[in-house]
């Protein structure tokens, strides 16, 4: 059976990395005549002495012009034993993110060392990044042996030095091959120049390295990717959970637990287009059917009742920052994608920045910029179901996405949580999504209720209060405990001492937030329509809820200023424009729109009633 092996190569042009890949492709007869012809022609035009095999692997025009590889390029070749995917990555420190990307899916890493220069800073860096990304097999290619007179002593010296350094890393399997990529020795064929080398050439090693047991076949993990419900006459009652097995082996008849609900049931069938199978293991893409009607949707995870992943919202992770436009700083908020689950996350703490050349930890660091790696603590809006990256690369990895630019800004590898104990999932996803206290659980369960805060922010006359009133009615219609906290009424009582200065507005928002939190704690859906113009104040209220483990649903009522002014039910805009009211939000005081609300409502969404329904659909539902 032919098997798939993915390997990453890191190195710069100077190391002969592109030449090595060119040699692998050329000697394994994976290069086509037309490709070779084109390379030969370009080499001739450039006046180079020999056919520059490196030209086979650099793709984009800019790279050809600059003569460097600046992105990850994927190359393919096959031998009768294996199909190979090469992630070809540049080696300089300014391309760390590309190396991390290429390494993320690799089974094996090739580290290039120039025999003349020995183990350099960049060799160490490549080895460190490979081990950080969980690559178990490292092959150190000691290249350009022709330039050190094929010296065995030199090879052994380099091997010794590298081995010493590698003891500090998490490397399972370390191999050294002396070679000349330019002349071909020990790449595909043994060559005649190093009779003292008793090992095998690189390609033979790559064909035989045992990678099947690198996968985690112990801990069953199945992130639900897509729910299959055919809505067709012939499969009327079919309900299957499609996904890719991320760990362990699932068998028909196995008892499984669903996270976050905590429900248990058994696997009734594992389906594929080609017919049912008895068992599924990584990385098979299958569809699992369950014996009982349990609520399962995308982002949920199937595991075994006595072998569940960590469930937590406080996460310790090592991240590589990948954005040149921004930096990672404590307090930063991002979209986080982990398996099939997407949630929001905030950087709580930057513990240290790691010098990837010396492995020195800088605990004074206050930011991570492009290509920097550090340890951070994150808090997520919904809990993640994860394993330590070292145990499982699929359930242990995540990416951070910038909400404004939508670009991927960081790659993260999760670590076993240290300080805080794991949150045990309770029976309902709504309770689970925040850490809870026993008193609350008992209260909510007894009363059959779920508390939370719905925060409607927007300009004056945007329609917040009308929507809030409709939402309260809808919830009461469902016999759910809801209460509209009218900010204007509060100004007559609790907040009677406050005016409209910036400080007083902040304090107004803070107090309303505290009150809402108490209502939520008591099991009520607190509905708060309040302008709350400043982002920092709203963030504080959100934090207040999140720290208490309460759901906070921020709704941005995004009615354009022109429309609000046109409505102007109390004539306030007219008076503000006339200068009778100073510091009026939207006129002469800023409104800072939310960048990441749970929901945005616009007049095009319909009447307040229709808008309220949209909110209702987004709320966590009680059992």
């Amino acid at each position, binding site marked *: 059976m*032919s098997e798939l092996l993915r390997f990453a190569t890191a190195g710069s042009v100077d190391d002969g990395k592109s030449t090595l890949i060119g040699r692998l492709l050329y000697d394994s007869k994976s290069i086509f*005549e037309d490709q070779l012809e084109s390379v030969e022609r370009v080499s001739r035009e450039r006046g180079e002495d020999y056919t520059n095999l490196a030209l086979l692997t650099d793709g984009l025009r800019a790279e050809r012009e600059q003569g460097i590889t600046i992105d990850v390029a994927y190359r393919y070749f096959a031998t009768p034993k294996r*199909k190979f995917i090469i992630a070809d990555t540049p080696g300089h420190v300014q391309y760390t993110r590309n190396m991390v990307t290429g390494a993320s899916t690799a089974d094996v890493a090739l580290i290039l060392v120039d025999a003349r220069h020995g183990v350099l800073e960049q060799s160490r860096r490549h080895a460190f990044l490979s081990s950080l990304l969980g690559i178990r097999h490292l092959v150190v290619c000691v290249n350009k042996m022709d330039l050190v007179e094929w010296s065995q002593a030199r090879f052994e010296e380099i091997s010794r030095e590298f081995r010493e350094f590698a003891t500090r890393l998490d490397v399972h399997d370390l191999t050294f091959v002396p070679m000349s990529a330019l002349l071909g020795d020990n790449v595909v064929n043994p060559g005649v120049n190093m009779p003292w080398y008793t090992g095998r050439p690189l390609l033979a090693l790559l064909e035989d390295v045992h990678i*099947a047991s690198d996968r985690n076949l112990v801990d069953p993990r199945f992130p639900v990717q897509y729910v299959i419900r055919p809505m067709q006459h012939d499969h009327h009652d079919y309900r299957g959970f499609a996904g890719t097995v991320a760990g362990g082996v699932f068998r028909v008849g196995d008892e499984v637990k669903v996270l976050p609900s905590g429900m248990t049931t058994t696997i009734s069938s594992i389906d594929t287009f080609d017919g049912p199978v008895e068992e599924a293991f990584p990385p098979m893409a*299958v569809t699992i059917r369950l014996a009982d009607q349990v609520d399962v949707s995308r982002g949920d995870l199937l595991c075994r009742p006595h072998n569940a992943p960590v469930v937590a919202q406080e996460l310790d992770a090592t991240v590589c920052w*990948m954005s040149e436009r921004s930096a990672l700083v404590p307090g930063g908020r991002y979209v986080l994608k982990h398996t099939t689950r997407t949630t929001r996350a905030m950087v709580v703490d930057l513990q240290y920045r790691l010098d990837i050349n010396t492995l020195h930890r800088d605990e004074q660091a206050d930011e991570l910029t492009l290509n920097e790696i550090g340890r951070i603590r994150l808090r997520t809006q919904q809990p993640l179901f994860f394993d330590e990256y070292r145990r499982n690369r699929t359930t242990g990895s995540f990416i951070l996405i910038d909400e404004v630019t939508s670009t991927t800004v960081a790659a993260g590898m999760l670590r076993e949580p240290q300080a805080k104990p794991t949150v045990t999932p309770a029976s309902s996803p709504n309770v689970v999504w925040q850490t809870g206290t026993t008193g609350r659980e008992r209260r909510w369960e007894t009363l059959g209720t779920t508390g939370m805060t719905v925060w409607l922010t927007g300009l004056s006359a945007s329609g917040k209060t009308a929507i809030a009133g409709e939402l309260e009615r809808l919830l009461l219609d469902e016999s759910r405990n809801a209460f509209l906290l009218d900010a204007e009424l509060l100004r007559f009582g609790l907040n009677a001492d406050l005016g409209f200065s910036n400080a007083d507005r902040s304090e107004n928002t803070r107090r309303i937030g505290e009150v809402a939190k108490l209502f939520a704690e008591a099991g009520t859906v607190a509905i708060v329509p309040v302008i709350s113009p400043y982002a920092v104040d709203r963030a504080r209220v959100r934090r207040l809820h999140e720290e208490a483990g309460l759901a906070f649903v921020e709704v941005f009522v995004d009615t354009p200023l022109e429309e609000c002014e046109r409505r102007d039910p109390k004539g306030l805009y007219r008076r503000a424009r006339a200068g009778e009211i100073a510091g009026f939000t939207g006129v002469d005081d800023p409104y800072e729109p939310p960048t990441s609300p749970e929901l945005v409502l616009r007049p095009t969404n319909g009447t307040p009633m229709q808008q309220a329904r949209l909110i209702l659909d987004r709320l966590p539902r009680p059992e």
Partner: protein
Amino acid sequence: MTNSTTGSPGTSRSYELSDLAALEAESIHIIREVAAEFERPVLLFSGGKDSIVMLHLARKAFWPARIPFPVLHVDTGHNFPEVIEYRDRTVAAIGIELVVGHVQHDIDAGRAVEDTGPRASRNRLQTVTLLRSIEEGRYDAVFGGARRDEEKARAKERIFSLRDEFGQWDPKAQRPELWSLYNTRHRRGEHLRVFPLSNWTELDIWRYIATEEIDIPSIYYAHRRPVVQRDGMLIAVTPFISVDDDELAYEEVVRFRTVGDATCTGAVESVAATVWDVIEEVSATRITERGATRADDRISEAGMEDRKKEGYF
């Protein structure tokens, strides 16, 4: 592809997957991810072998449900009749909606200007029709059958590749793509091209067609037809090309390695009559698919990169 109970060649007791089974699983994962995270995906379907494999994988991804998105064919009007017949038969058998974007409509409306002369090709004009079709269909994810082994510029393209509101690709602003975590976010008007076959090679495609017993248009297998020699390629004599006075049309036993616009897709001399013959031939061949049979890719060193930036497939 993967059936451990019946002991098919896909798996073994040591929980290993064959390379094809692993590629298939990766592609299905990608296709499901799109269905889960996008509102209006569409799959580009030309009746060529790569898009046929992609469609086959999509069926597998959602079975027993139907494929939850339509297929789109950008039709230059210069078709091989065998391919159109195949397309219509396949779409009807699967029960999937077919949307056709006609290059002719864009020419008629003056949005695209046709090249003139005997070597005129509508290949480049497809970009106009493709982008118009995407805009009209408000598609936010477009599945393409491109493979990274086809061409140097493709080797660095992501599996989920962002196109701006003009349909253009910026190779400098690609998002990092790690593990199997795909960033699907995009603004209104932007879309993502998604390439589930990125990691497949031409040989993988053929081996898969063989093991899955997938039906493909007959022109992929050896047959006799009139051809002319052009730029070292054999171009089929069809009503869409004019044969120059100094060209000689003659009959030859050929097959096509790719299927595209009939005016610029070259045939190769071949007697490979079955899929296994083709595999043998492809395994032994020393010329890339595009180098052999695509006149349009021979324009310049950076031909494909430029075209992709404009919004080409």
